[in-house]
């Protein structure tokens, strides 16, 4: 497999194996031109969070989290269209991630539970799915009561 290197703004140069690339052939809303991403799991350093780094724009990376960590009852029903688009044949192939918005005030970080990312980990295909359920686009990760404490 051909390794390639990109110079990311957050992580510096990264050498990536082609087989790790996840293709979002529709891009994602707001970034229709970004088709290739890799998932960075930096282990203990990031806790339950991961990063989805765009390969076509080294400045763009999304913090992501498994929504089940925030809401244990969170369920996603993939649409028939999504199943076809991501070539899903078994539910075990699917990884669900929520995009996290982190502003300067870290305590107000939110996760988008309304539009999760669905990734077929076997086929390396991904897409953002807008759910019909009235779930929040900005689910506070730290909860209303924690915003008082903040982060020093």
């Amino acid at each position, binding site marked *: 497999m051909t390794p390639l290197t990109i110079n990311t703004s957050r992580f510096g140069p990264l050498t990536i194996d082609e087989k790790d690339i996840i293709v979002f052939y529709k891009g994602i*809303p707001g970034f229709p031109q970004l088709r290739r991403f890799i998932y960075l799991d930096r282990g203990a350093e990031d806790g339950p969070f991961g990063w989805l780094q765009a390969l076509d724009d080294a400045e763009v990376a999304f913090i992501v989290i498994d929504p089940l960590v925030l809401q244990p009852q969170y369920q996603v029903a993939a649409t*028939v269209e999504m199943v076809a688009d991501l070539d899903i044949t078994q539910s075990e192939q699917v990884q669900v991630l929520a995009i996290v*918005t982190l*502003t300067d005030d870290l305590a107000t970080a939110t996760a988008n539970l309304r539009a999760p990312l669905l990734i077929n980990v076997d086929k390396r295909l991904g897409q953002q799915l807008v759910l019909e359920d009235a779930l929040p686009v*900005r689910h506070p990760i730290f909860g209303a009561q*924690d915003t008082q404490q903040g*982060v020093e």
Partner: protein
Amino acid sequence: MLVLARKVGEKIVIGKDIEVTVLAIKGDQVRLGIEAPDNVSIHRQEIFLEIEAENKRAARSKKPLSLAQLWEQRNK
């Protein structure tokens, strides 16, 4: 764009499987009933704009010194 005028109780049929019924009109608000197969997703248009805007905000997230530490704060 096809423009149709409908009164309360009247319907529009789209394709073979989608039906839109005008259920009520109150002031400047129309209440619509939509019947469609499960594989057709239905959304208010604003949600796509909201998702797009939120993705753009999220893409600007900087890398904090420690996401793990941030997470630990939450569990205190």
